[in-house]
């Protein structure tokens, strides 16, 4: 069954495509924006911006470390560099450069990691960014966003350009269902409630928002009304929304396409513990890398399905 089918969501665009389109569209409005690429602009979609504004697009070759520090230099001259690569290569290859050339000096660099998670499919685990959120969230005073669909990704792209300081936006490769029809309320650090419910709260990001809505549809048939929060900002976490969900539903499940350590689950758990402790369960990639395969098959095999989220809810409610 296709993602979003259970909850009746139409299929939409890939978040990387939405990011690329938004960046191209915003280029005229934000003249200080430049792109710095590590020769994957046709995959990350920054190529669309660079083609529209050739004097503002820099391809430094297959050199992620250099790419990030060059962006730091551009930012220190008042530019707003958008640096995109595969999430795995951007965060893992250039982490020290992100720390020293961006986060520590608090420069206005916009990091974008595409091809995140196992849903990239056939290219396999070397290309799958599954630690990127943990790494990005470990950086001091850095905003970390994981968007769930095209419309929210466009909104996030604008929000990151307007934010003064380092940001990381995580995007995916495959097409994902439409979560937001029409205007998207998007404020950094403010979760969106995409389904009301009082029996349990499912806090999700990325494509797991659609999965969680599917799970909510399954659960509704069993008489369990699940609230679904699109926690598009992992850092700073929306503490108020988490506490409210804990208070009002009494149980929280966190769903993400990421390893367990340091991801959204860890962040929400520490928030729950500090605010309103309630039983929790987690749906994620655990502590192991995946493999090559078709995206739907991978999501099934590695437990990122509506049924897995529903089972976690039943467990935490039981």
């Amino acid at each position, binding site marked *: 069954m296709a993602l979003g089918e259970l909850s009746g969501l139409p299929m939409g665009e890939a978040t990387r495509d939405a990011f690329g389109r938004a960046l191209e569209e915003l280029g005229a409005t934000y003249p200080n924006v430049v792109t*710095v690429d590590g020769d994957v602009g046709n995959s990350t979609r920054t190529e669309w911006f660079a083609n529209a504004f050739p004097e503002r697009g820099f391809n430094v070759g297959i050199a992620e*470390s*250099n790419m990030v*520090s060059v*962006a730091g*230099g*551009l930012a*220190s001259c008042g530019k707003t560099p958008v640096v995109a690569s595969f999430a795995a290569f951007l965060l893992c290859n250039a982490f020290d450069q992100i720390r020293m050339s961006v986060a520590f000096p608090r420069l206005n660099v916009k990091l974008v990691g595409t091809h995140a998670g196992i849903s990239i499919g056939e290219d396999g685990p070397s290309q799958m960014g599954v630690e990127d959120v943990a790494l990005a969230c470990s950086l001091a005073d850095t905003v970390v966003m994981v968007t769930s669909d095209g419309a929210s990704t466009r909104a996030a792209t604008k929000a990151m350009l307007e934010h003064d300081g380092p940001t990381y936006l995580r995007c995916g490769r495959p097409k994902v269902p439409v979560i937001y029809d029409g205007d998207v309320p998007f404020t950094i650090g403010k979760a969106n409630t995409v389904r009301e419910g009082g029996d349990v709260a499912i806090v999700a990001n990325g494509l797991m928002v659609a999965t969680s809505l599917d799970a909510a549809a399954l659960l509704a048939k069993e008489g369990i009304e699940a609230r679904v929060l699109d926690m598009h900002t992992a850092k700073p976490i929306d503490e108020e929304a988490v506490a409210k969900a804990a208070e009002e539903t009494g149980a929280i499940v966190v769903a993400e396409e990421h390893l367990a350590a340091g991801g959204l689950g860890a962040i929400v758990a520490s928030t729950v513990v500090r605010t309103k402790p309630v039983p929790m369960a987690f749906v994620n990639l655990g502590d192991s890398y995946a493999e090559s395969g078709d995206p739907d098959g991978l999501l099934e095999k590695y437990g990122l399905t509506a049924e897995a989220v529903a089972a976690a809810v039943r467990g935490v409610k039981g």
Partner: protein
Amino acid sequence: MSEKPSIEELEAKADLLRCHAIRMTTEAGSGHPSSSLSAAEVTAALYFGGYLNVDPANPTMPERDRFILSKGHACPILYAAMAERGYFPVEDLMTLRKLGSPIEGHPNLRRLPGIEASTGSLGQGLSIGVGQALGCRMDGHANRVFVVIGDGEMGEGQVWEAIATAAKYKLGNLTAIIDQNGYQQTGSTKTVLDQTPFADRIAPFGWHTQTINGNSMAEVVSALDAAVAVTDQPTMIVAETKKGAGIIPILEELGDSNLHGQPLKPEWAEKAIALLQS
């Protein structure tokens, strides 16, 4: 600077900066004086020889020249130059590495106006300089970016990525200086990881290169004059220097020609300063 100082005046300035670097690291009880001293001529020439157009009263003016000390551990020599140039009082140098002081163990742009890049993780300064050179050029400024790199630091592959990128974009407003003092933390660069001859390896990327005695003020000044005259490609000055230059007899007496990351004990610091002032 209205009138260009003489070589002798710049030499005296370099030795003054050396004295500051020795005093401040001895006071701090830690730091890298020998790594600082090798770069004294280059730093003095840039800050006092009319090459670095900066205004301590307006440290963020967009058209200023940029100086990046990629070998951030040598920052005592940079702090000494900044103090003498008027960024902060000379007496503040003695707060080096102390709690609350913006004169930190490695340069931190968030805390000290005039620092153009936070460094201390080796290998990143030239890439940051490439970004600044690109940004300045986009804005139509006729300024220049100077980056000082250590020879041991050349072991970082990122420096070579930056060399290739600067050549690709023909950054005629970028000058890099390798402070080739011959030593890194655990020994000579020849034995740890020899990447010389630098000029022969860097020129084919598309850089203008010069190799000079980096502890000769006359040669440093000539090389900087030649570098700033080049506007269609990045320029590299390979400055062959001595670690601890200016107080080599002291290092010999101590039996350590590297003396990496070690401040001089007060009695040795006094001897070193007396030698520099003689």
